[in-house]
């Protein structure tokens, strides 16, 4: 993976901005952390949806799984889990700072690894489905996970699960900063990983699967293997993002926070499509625009935000399926390294 000089300046600029952001906008620390998580989700959705052509509604499964696992490990390492959920998060048990961070670290590792394994296990059966069968099946998976986890007593069932509150370390600002830098770190990790993947043969294979899977198979590519690996990569980062989000929100509910197929599960698809499927920067731009729009205008729609969301989905999907990157690409093709033959273009204009 080679980085050109212009890109290097861009990356360093973003990095400096990212580190300075919580101090520049101290009021928006939580929003910025959520933005990082959203970008991670959109970018990893893009690995299947954009590059591989497998439009999944089910990445929410890994997100929710990571959320529950991280919180459960964090509690379960030091206190009995069943009593914790039963007490509804009253302060009968208090994490010391050491326990909190230790639990968070182990929890995040578990939250990343277990969804990856789950993705690998179910990948062979699920990824054999094509097109809309895959989409509906993953939708079913996400909703089923939500409904089932809503019936399990030990993780709070219907009444929800309170994640451990941030320990008192003397500084009121430290909670926001901790979660911001954690999510920003995961964002950088995701970006490096995805950019690395996109510059290898792996991406070309994923694109081959998207364009014509049977032909790719006929060319001697073991498509199933690559599909599963692609899904596992997504699951890894979705689990991490879920774990962080659980700690950030502070409260886990099976259908409204964790396996929220109606909200987060659609958001990640929408953000990737808004930015432009199948590009590196598309999901990042899409997530940023979407988050700013959502937070900026949600208050105007007070109570009507989901109506606005439904309209937004329909409008984006119908009138804007190529996304922002697709639009830019059409407008400035040279910037994307496409060479245009002037004669050919003129000839086409004349034909019209």
């Amino acid at each position, binding site marked *: 993976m080679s980085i050109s000089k212009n890109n290097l300046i861009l990356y360093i600029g973003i990095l400096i901005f990212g580190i300075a952001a919580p101090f520049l906008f101290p009021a928006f620390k939580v929003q910025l952390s959520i933005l990082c998580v959203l970008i991670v989700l959109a970018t990893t959705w893009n690995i299947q949806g954009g590059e591989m052509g497998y*439009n999944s509604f089910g990445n929410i499964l890994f997100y929710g799984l990571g959320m529950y696992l991280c919180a459960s490990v964090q509690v379960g390492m030091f206190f009995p889990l069943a009593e914790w959920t039963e007490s509804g998060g009253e302060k009968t048990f208090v994490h010391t700072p050491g326990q909190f961070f230790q639990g968070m670290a182990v929890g995040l590792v578990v939250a990343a690894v277990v969804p990856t394994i789950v993705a690998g296990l179910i990948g062979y*059966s*699920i990824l*054999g*489905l094509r*097109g*809309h*069968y895959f*989409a*509906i*099946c993953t*939708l*079913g*998976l996400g*909703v*089923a996970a*939500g*409904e*089932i986890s*809503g*019936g399990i007593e030990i993780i709070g*069932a*219907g009444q929800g699960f309170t994640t451990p509150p941030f320990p008192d370390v003397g500084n009121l600002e430290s909670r926001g900063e901790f979660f911001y830098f954690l999510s920003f770190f995961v964002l950088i990790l995701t970006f490096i990983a995805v950019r690395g993947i996109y510059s290898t043969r792996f991406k070309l294979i994923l694109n081959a699967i998207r364009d014509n899977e049977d032909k790719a198979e006929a060319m001697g590519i073991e498509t199933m293997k690559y599909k599963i690996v692609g899904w596992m990569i997504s699951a890894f980062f979705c689990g991490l993002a879920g774990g962080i989000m659980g700690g950030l929100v502070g409260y886990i509910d099976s259908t409204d926070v964790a396996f929220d197929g*109606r909200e987060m599960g*659609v958001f990640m*698809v929408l953000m990737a*499509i808004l930015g432009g499927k199948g590009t590196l920067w598309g999901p990042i731009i899409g997530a940023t625009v979407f988050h700013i729009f959502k937070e900026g205008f949600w208050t105007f729609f007070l*109570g*009507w935000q*989901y*109506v606005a*969301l*439904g*309209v*937004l*989905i*329909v409008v984006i*999907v*119908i009138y804007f*399926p190529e996304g922002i990157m697709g639009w830019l690409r059409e407008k400035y093709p040279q910037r994307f390294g496409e060479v245009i033959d002037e004669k050919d273009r003129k000839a086409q204009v004349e034909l019209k």
Partner: protein
Amino acid sequence: MISVQACLDGILLGILFALIAYGMALQWGVMNIINIAQGDLVILGGYIAYFMYLYGIHPAWGVIVSPIIMYFVGIAIYKLVINKVVDRDLFISILATFGISILFMQLMNFAFGADVVLANSDYGTTMLFNSNVVLPNSKIFSAFISILFAICLVIYMKKSKLGRAIRATAQNARAAKILGVDTEKVYAATFGINAALCGVAGALISITFTIHPYMGLPYTIRSFMIVIVAGLGNLPGVAMSGMGLGVFEEFADYILGTEFRIGSVFLLLVLILVYRRFKLSRKREYLK
């Protein structure tokens, strides 16, 4: 006796599911669109009957009023959204109808409130087997009406001009267009008929069960499941698999508990799709 009860309940319920699934099979076959908002159309139809009940009209009349209103709702949805996604990628249509589904869900939530409601029909109950098995008459009524509507629709599709145009479009849209069928009109009518069927089913559901703005998605999933198990254009199959699903649900409800009922439906969908995938892949095996 409890299993007889569950079986009968399931069969009566399944007939209703089959009616919804028939609508889905119709539009899937004709327009190649999977409508995620199907369940929300059902719930909307249910609210129409519920409102008639609130204003003192017997909710059973909803069976006639609701499809008429829903037909125009369906046409409106088609004109506004669906006709722009008909020839596009299937995923686009899934996502667009998902958006419609969220929109409807929230609008119904605003208009009718988030309470679970039921239109009481006062039909009483029927006791069978020394009153060991209790069947509400409203369930029997709804199953009867569903069968009636399904038969009417089948005859309509076979005999009428529009029905023949719809079937021709389903077989080959381009050829139908060449032979003078206005496919645009056919698509609109198909979507309208589908919405009307949802309206009937919704009105019946509001009489027999309960309705709630967020209950749409499970109905979509059920009808999708029935259609893929039965296959497109296989009416007896749709009826049978609908009843099978109903019985499965009642037993899942009885054995696992009500809180896992919806979860088991979605899980069954995943299992069916996975089973189907392995069955199909075995068929493809000899190509290797």
